[in-house]
């Protein structure tokens, strides 16, 4: 898959795009992500390791409504993709969010594949397209 990604990035192939789309779709379904907002929130937590923050702050940083990020955080936590600490008593809605230690190996593999893909513009567009196609109403939540 990595080889295919490099070729896509270099605009050298068009034919395997369908295969690539299928792989991306498999990864997304595997980790259980259907919404673009979920992907963006997961990417934020993944990139920042552990984050002491609130849904509102993440929303401001990645350009979503606070409620959308709050919903995404809840769903990602239920899917054991991320974990959070108890809420801070001092600051409203602030918790420590981080990638779940209990995420299974297969999930980790899929997530890493998706992050590898999202490092190229072509990959990001494909991911965005896939997420929209998986759940057309996700467009309402997108930036």
């Amino acid at each position, binding site marked *: 898959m990595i080889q295919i990604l490099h070729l896509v990035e270099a605009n050298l192939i068009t034919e395997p795009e369908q295969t690539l789309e299928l792989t991306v779709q498999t990864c997304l379904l595997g980790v259980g992500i259907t919404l673009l907002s979920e992907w963006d929130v997961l990417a934020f937590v993944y990139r920042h390791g552990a984050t*002491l923050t609130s849904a509102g702050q993440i929303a401001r940083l990645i350009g979503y409504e606070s409620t959308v990020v709050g919903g995404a955080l809840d769903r990602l936590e239920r899917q054991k993709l991320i974990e959070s600490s108890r809420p801070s008593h001092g600051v409203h809605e602030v918790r420590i969010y981080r990638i779940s230690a209990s995420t299974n190996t297969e999930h980790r593999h899929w997530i890493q594949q998706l992050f590898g893909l999202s490092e190229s513009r072509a990959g990001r567009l494909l991911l965005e397209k896939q997420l929209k196609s998986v759940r057309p109403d996700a467009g309402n939540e997108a930036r």
Partner: protein
Amino acid sequence: MIKRGLTKTGIKGLDSILLGGIPRANVILVQGPTGSGKTLMGLEFIYRGITEFNEPGLIIVFETNPDKLTRDACGFGWDLEELQRQKKLQIIFTSPEVFDQELRSPDSLLLEFASEMGAQRIFVDNVGLLNSDLSGSNSTRGGYRELLQQLTESLNRENLTAMFSLEVGSSADSIAITEMTAFLADTVIQLGRERRGRRMHRSLEIVKSRGQDYEAGEHTMHITDGEGLRIFRRVQAPLHSNAQQPTSSTMRSVIGVDAIDTLIGGGIFDGSTTMVVGVSGVGKTVLGTQILREGSLRQKTRGLLISLDEHPAQIIRNAQTLGLNLEEQVADGTIRILFESPQELDVDAHYARIVQLIEEHDVQRMVIDGMTSYSTAIGEVAVYRDFFHAIVAYSKQRLMTTFFNYENPEFLGISSYMPDFPLSSIVDNLILMSLVEINNSLHRCISVVKSRGSKHSFDTREFVIGQGGISLVPLEQNPIPAVPLQSYSSLLSRAPTRFSVPKRTNGAAAVQAKE
């Protein structure tokens, strides 16, 4: 051995400047301009704490993406991801506002987290951002001060040794913030980054450190790939020596070079310093090589030759042509050769390397060949003088016999021993090597013009360089010129005058008569 109550930073060279470390639970402020290495210092403080002292750590970042921090650390060979997996390290990304409010909370989530992982160190990068939403008015500056006080109180309560970074700007507000933060911190480390000529120089200075003494002044800092930070103590910093350590000896050692031993009368004092002054090509390097080789072979002393001009291979080759085989001594480590290019010579780092070599190999004789190259490489007279003084002081402290070669620029006639560097008074012995023109040929001469505590000869003697190095021409067997040097006056002027009547008839006179 770790001193009780001190936190070692683990950063190479820093703990020795801090005379062992920083008092535990001190709040350390690392301040400096952009690109001076503040974040790296915090990162290494945490990394070394975990890997060398088993002290888990927490890093709080506001601006830097933790991913990039982890990536940059990889360049120094520090695997932060693995440390996070082992739960010995946690990098937490947050905003200054959340951090501020959260730490004010009586049951702070952050401090609870730190306690759970057993953190003993925390690095906050950078605390100046805690002031980002303040306009700079007196009331908000007061707010920042209060915030910092609360922050340090919270961290002290948890017995965390905290390091804060602070970007130093030039605006009035930034200066006020810097002063306020520096006042509240227990230890303040100032990092600098400035142009010196066309190169960049990094520096480190301990501005204050409550509860301890430290090496004051501006030290040199290097950032090295695959290694991290390294601090080099400024060369002129006074040595912290054991009061019992003698700095002079009544023991004399035969140098093994007859030119010196004959003229000084039985060798020079151990631990003395000798300046060998002479014009280019007169044989200073040969003498230095010979001193080290003889020391190694006959006195069993370990030697160090330092050169900014010649690569070790070239030194060995040139010595070989005179039958002075250095290869064996270099191979078995009894003689070390340190060559460093004079281009971009960093004097603090260079001095540290010399000291390291001396201590690692227990060097007892050292030859620095030569001081003139240092003058050119260092540029600043004050720094050059500091370097020289430091080497002399260090040599004395170790009772190491040290020779400095100095190239006198005057080819004909000497008006001063060291015209651009009048420090001949500091050394114990002064040897002058000259070229003298007699008839149409140049002759090499040597004189001992100073030898503290010794009854030395003031005669100027001719010497030759041949197989085995330098040797004095015997007084009675001086083949050329037809009369010995004693028949001349004004030899040091390099324009000698021959006495009208030969002082004695000897072998040389016989040669003259034969002619």
